[in-house]
């Protein structure tokens, strides 16, 4: 436990002292802000256009702003998350501190979980930066707290999956740029894999759709927490964490 905390503190401090955290957070929140701004403006525009009561009765902040906003946010996350994880092990390998870390009385699991917890904390802080927009929207119009809760749950699970994959890729190389690009490519592949089924005439629901990382996020944005979606993200994380552990172990053996 002490080892875990030591790694966690060290990682967290290094994140906050590096420019990458501020750049990633600024870009992410800037894009989120723009998407929020555009969604609210569109909501206002359609409210003006709604001439008949039938159309007006279908306008609400939850479906007009929150659901599409969180959906778009998941795509933005796919683009920026690899930048948070690219340094996790690649930097240590490059500077040679990984060998040093191996000499400490630390288990690989403690090292890995310490790094994961640190990057999850950083991601949580970035995600918390979106809350003022949601709070502001709730001051303008009634919105569904259940959808907010489920969407943030989904975003956190989705982000965790992105981060676990990123950490795994980072453990494979000592070049941070390579780690970021490969992570991005892998995430993109996991995103687009479900599209193949849709283009082949089916409406989805097959094994390829099941592997699609964003497909499991849709239900969260509509206020549904499905145990299969939660399980998918947890298993996804477990797979890449296990892979990272094996890579670390392999590096120890190789010396």
């Amino acid at each position, binding site marked *: 436990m002490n080892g875990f905390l030591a790694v966690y503190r060290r990682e967290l401090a290094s994140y906050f002292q590096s420019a990458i955290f501020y750049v990633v957070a600024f870009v992410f929140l800037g894009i*989120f*802000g723009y998407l929020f701004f555009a969604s609210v403006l569109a909501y206002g525009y359609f409210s003006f256009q709604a001439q008949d009561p039938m159309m007006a009765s279908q306008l609400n*902040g939850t479906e007009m702003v929150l659901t599409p906003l969180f959906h778009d946010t998941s795509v933005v996350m796919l683009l920026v998350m690899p930048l948070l994880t690219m340094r996790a092990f690649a930097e240590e390998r490059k500077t040679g501190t990984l060998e040093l870390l191996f000499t400490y009385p630390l288990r690989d699991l403690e090292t890995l979980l310490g790094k994961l917890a640190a990057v999850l904390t950083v991601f949580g802080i970035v995600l918390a930066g979106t809350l003022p927009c949601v709070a502001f929207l709730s001051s303008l119009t009634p919105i569904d707290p259940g959808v907010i809760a489920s969407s943030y749950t989904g975003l956190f699970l989705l982000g965790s999956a992105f981060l676990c994959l990123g950490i795994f890729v980072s453990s494979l190389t000592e070049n941070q740029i390579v780690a970021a690009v490969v992570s991005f490519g892998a995430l993109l592949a996991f995103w687009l894999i479900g599209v193949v089924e849709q283009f082949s005439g089916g409406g989805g629901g097959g094994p390829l759709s099941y592997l699609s990382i964003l497909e499991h996020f849709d239900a969260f944005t509509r*206020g*549904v927490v499905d145990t299969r979606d939660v399980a998918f993200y947890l*298993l996804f994380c477990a797979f890449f964490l296990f892979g990272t552990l094996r890579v670390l172990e392999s590096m120890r053996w190789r010396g």
Partner: protein
Amino acid sequence: MPFGRSRRVRTGSQTALAMLAFATVLVFAGLFVARFPERIDLTDVGAQSLSEETRKVLASLETDVHAIAFPSREGGGPEALRDLLENCRVASRRFTYEMVDAERNLSLAKQYEVRSLDTTVLVAGGKSHNVTEATEQALTNGLRELLLDRERKVYFTAGHGEHPLEGTTNEAYSGVRGDIQGANFPVEPLTLITAEKIPDDAAAIIIGGPRKPFMEPEIELLRAYVLGGGALIVLLDPENDAGLRELLKEWGVGLDDDLIVDKFSRMFGGDYTTPVVMEYNADSFMAGFNVATFFPEARSIEPLSPAPPGITVTRLASTSQAAWGERGTSEIKEGVVEFQAETDIPGPVPVAVLSELPPRDVPAQVPAEGSSQENEGDGNGEAEGAARGRVIVFGDSDFIADAYLGLSGNADFFLNTLEYLAREANPVLIERRQREGAPLFMTAGQGQALTLVSFALSPGLVLLGGLMVWRSRRKNR
């Protein structure tokens, strides 16, 4: 191979193998979770939950039901339909579904006679039922319809010179008969004069252009059937009311002795006694139907005002403003057709009228046999439903005869009305749970605050934090 390299290859392949083995374990874990799924609805209005009625119907499934959905691509249609079907799948292991792109699977759509998007075909044990609305209520009632053990039939009355159901003549109903059978309703003739009562398995009775009057006992049977929640379609030609005038009057439908004349129709190259109908009641089940229909030699059907107490009478389809109901048939014989304001009925003239009787608890005519009764006895709420008699009267019987059935939207119009009537007399009513509408109208101040919150607040704080760290690091150098 150098020793170091061989060790790297060995450890690398061991890692890959271990990951493969672990992935297999995870696949089984995923399958286990998928076998016992749970969906937690966090929405404040319960928009993602099934109603108690639907849960009961799904819980009572004794055979596997497979739903084939043909969603529209517009708006949130596919997601809403997928959510509904997914909820059903989670609620019952006997329920499965697939989403199909109708444009890419035309043969499948044709096989199940899918006529519009957002249709879901329910298939069980060789039977199928089309649900044409993407709502929980429609799906639940479709499931109940599908699961009724006995077949519900459509009966055509016989013995009064009605259109024959078979044959190759222009006036035969063989085409529409095939269409009705394609919609999963077996068709049979019904001789009322020898019948003691209308069969219990009747989904609807159709009176197709009788030339001789009905006798009093026959009228009595029809009255009892409709009052008991039955569905009746009456197709009457001009100059012949078949003795049904008084009966229809009881249900708020009046017959006039006229012939509809539509000079606009003549402009299409047809006869002016074949009115073209383009106006359908958008507040009825005809909403969205916008195809022209043609009624050769039709009479007007009048929704009586005021309607008898408790009865709702709705005009379903009318001619254009240019048409009128010509009362002076002698003028037509002479070839002189001009609108006479004093005697004729001005357009638009109704050609189809729906009469809905007040709900009555009459168990005799509601599904009352076999498993359906057992299901009601299970306390799933069906018995609480009240039968509601429904009658649709058309001012023409030829428009669905073989000579005219294929003309424009004639077949679709008739089948729509039949499907509406033939639905179960006591459907489950499920209130749609949706969020209240809240249009957004922002003040100038709120607009400025929006800009500030969107672009300045969080990104600004991050930028400030970054600058502070950068300055302190520069100081420490």
